[in-house]
């Protein structure tokens, strides 16, 4: 048996609604270091846990705009500044033509930046997370819903928190090894 204090407590719920309700209650109780785990995105769960950011969307948008501008600028520099050539009597700075690849590259940049931002902010990839060692947690990707409260949470008290979780209707409360 592990003697060190656990990293978190993990409560399992049978469905999304009870997880959502539990999460809201936990927030009301003042817990801060809490997280939900579900086999699909549960509407409102993140917001219930205090998630309020649009950074990924904004960064993706910035990626799009930045990609577009950069591509446009790069094409202009290559075709009109660094090696200007008379191509079919067309203008050197053919913005309309440049806009086409720029738009495509903007799409690429937007998607890549958005995804990269998501991974960075989520601290992914993290294949060695302790939660993944909890045997029952495997159901989190299939049909079980979990609420975790980290032991670093200022409101965390070993017995009281466990009791609180059971009170919320958790089927099972587990300790996450450190």
């Amino acid at each position, binding site marked *: 048996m592990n003697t060190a204090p656990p990293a978190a407590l993990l409560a399992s719920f*049978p*469905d*999304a609604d009870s997880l959502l309700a539990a999460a809201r209650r936990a927030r009301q109780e003042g817990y801060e270091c809490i*997280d*939900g*785990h*579900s*086999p*699909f*995105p*549960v509407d409102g*769960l*993140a917001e219930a*846990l205090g*998630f309020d*950011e649009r*950074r*990924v*969307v904004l960064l*993706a*948008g910035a990626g799009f705009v930045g990609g577009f501008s950069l591509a446009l600028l*790069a*094409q202009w520099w*290559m*075709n009109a500044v*660094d*090696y200007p*050539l008379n*191509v*079919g009597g067309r203008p050197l700075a053919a913005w309309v*033509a440049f806009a*086409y*690849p720029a*738009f*495509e590259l903007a*799409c*690429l940049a*937007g*998607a*890549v930046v*958005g*995804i990269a*931002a*998501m991974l960075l*902010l*989520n601290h*992914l*990839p*993290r*294949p060695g*997370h302790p*939660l*993944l060692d909890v045997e029952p947690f*495997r*159901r*989190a*990707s*299939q*049909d*079980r819903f979990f609420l975790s409260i980290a032991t670093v949470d200022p409101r965390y008290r070993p017995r009281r928190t466990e009791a609180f979780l059971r009170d919320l209707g958790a089927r099972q409360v587990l300790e996450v090894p450190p």
Partner: protein
Amino acid sequence: MSTGAEIFQPITVQVADIALARRVRRRWWLALALSGAATVAFVATVVWLLATGVGIWGINIPVNWGLAIVNSIWWAGLATAGTLISALLLLVPGQQWRSALNRFAEAMTVLAVAMAGVFPILHLGRPEAVHWMLPLPSTLGVWPQFRSPLTWDVASLLAYLLVSLAFWYVGMIPDLATLRDRAGGARRRRAYNRLALGWRGSALHWARWRQAYRAAALMAVLAATLHSGGAMLFAAGPSAAWHTTGLPPYLLASGVFSGLAVVLLLTLSLRAAFGLGAVITGRHLDIMGRLLLVAGLAFLYGAATLAFGAWYSGDPRQAQFLVERAVGAHAVTTWAAMALMFVPLQALWWRRARRAPAVLAAVALAVVPGVWLDRYVLVLGGLQRDYLPSRWGEYAPTAAEWALFGGTLGAFAFLFLLFVRFLPLVAMFEIREATA
């Protein structure tokens, strides 16, 4: 209220076990062997081609683009349907039925774009210098020429491939986590865990993932729409047959049309092969049938608009291209394409037909080659009958060209079979979300 275990477990088990099953059915091996052989033949033809050059094709002046370009824009067109089903419908609220189909439709998209990208490289006179189309510094000091619609095509095909690949992969992460958690052996678990990036279904992760996923979907849709199956390469040039603003929507519509037919074929095959009747229901088939009908009618409208525009332009050469298509050297091909694309399609006005897999398969099997023939006529007709009658020429594809086309079909099937075997072919989490 029933518990998650009762609702979600059947779909999870059914889909995940396709990828996780220890024993594989003989049919899969047989299909893999066949498509593998075609892939080997493809690689051999490519080696032959690279060793001897495009002289082994039937291309000439004026028909200096042949089957390779037909195939390229045909594959690129197919891809657009996958993007439409997965990305566009993701952005449209209330379209949860897509969840049963989007994963393999995306896989189809990624593979089709890859196949579309093979041909433009192989068709080069000097394929060893293909990287000159990218803005890489070189001793020549020359850059790519960004006014060229071909450069646009390089940029858009590349962007399209990468965006759809990223979109497909990001959408697959949660399902890879499911595979990890259901995988038996430690090695497979580790492998799937790596692929899933250690995904643990955290609420905050989900929230950010959703934002990124939707942003990527939007990008994929935009990229696909602008690419329009490579239409700019034709529409931006001065050829009378192609030089029309109607061409990009025309190619987009026909691409979606043929792509939907391919998705339908894949749907029916996977449904039958893995008994996915509970996941891909009659309602799914019904909607797919309707979509195919709508796409077909949209394409028919587009074709009619192009024809009208050619006639109404008063340009004798545009009209002549029309006549050439209808009664000229390609008349048989043209009308075969029309018949294949639009005659069986009419069965889909009936609900019973839309729910009958055999009827759907027959319609789709007609549409796919029909659109191919339509592109054949579009590309070759435009080149064979250009401005000066003195330069009107003929073209006959050679065995090497057909072998390459067959080879990409084989390579597509080969890679798709591997996808079916090792990756989650249905978006399980989305189905859970939809049923919750």
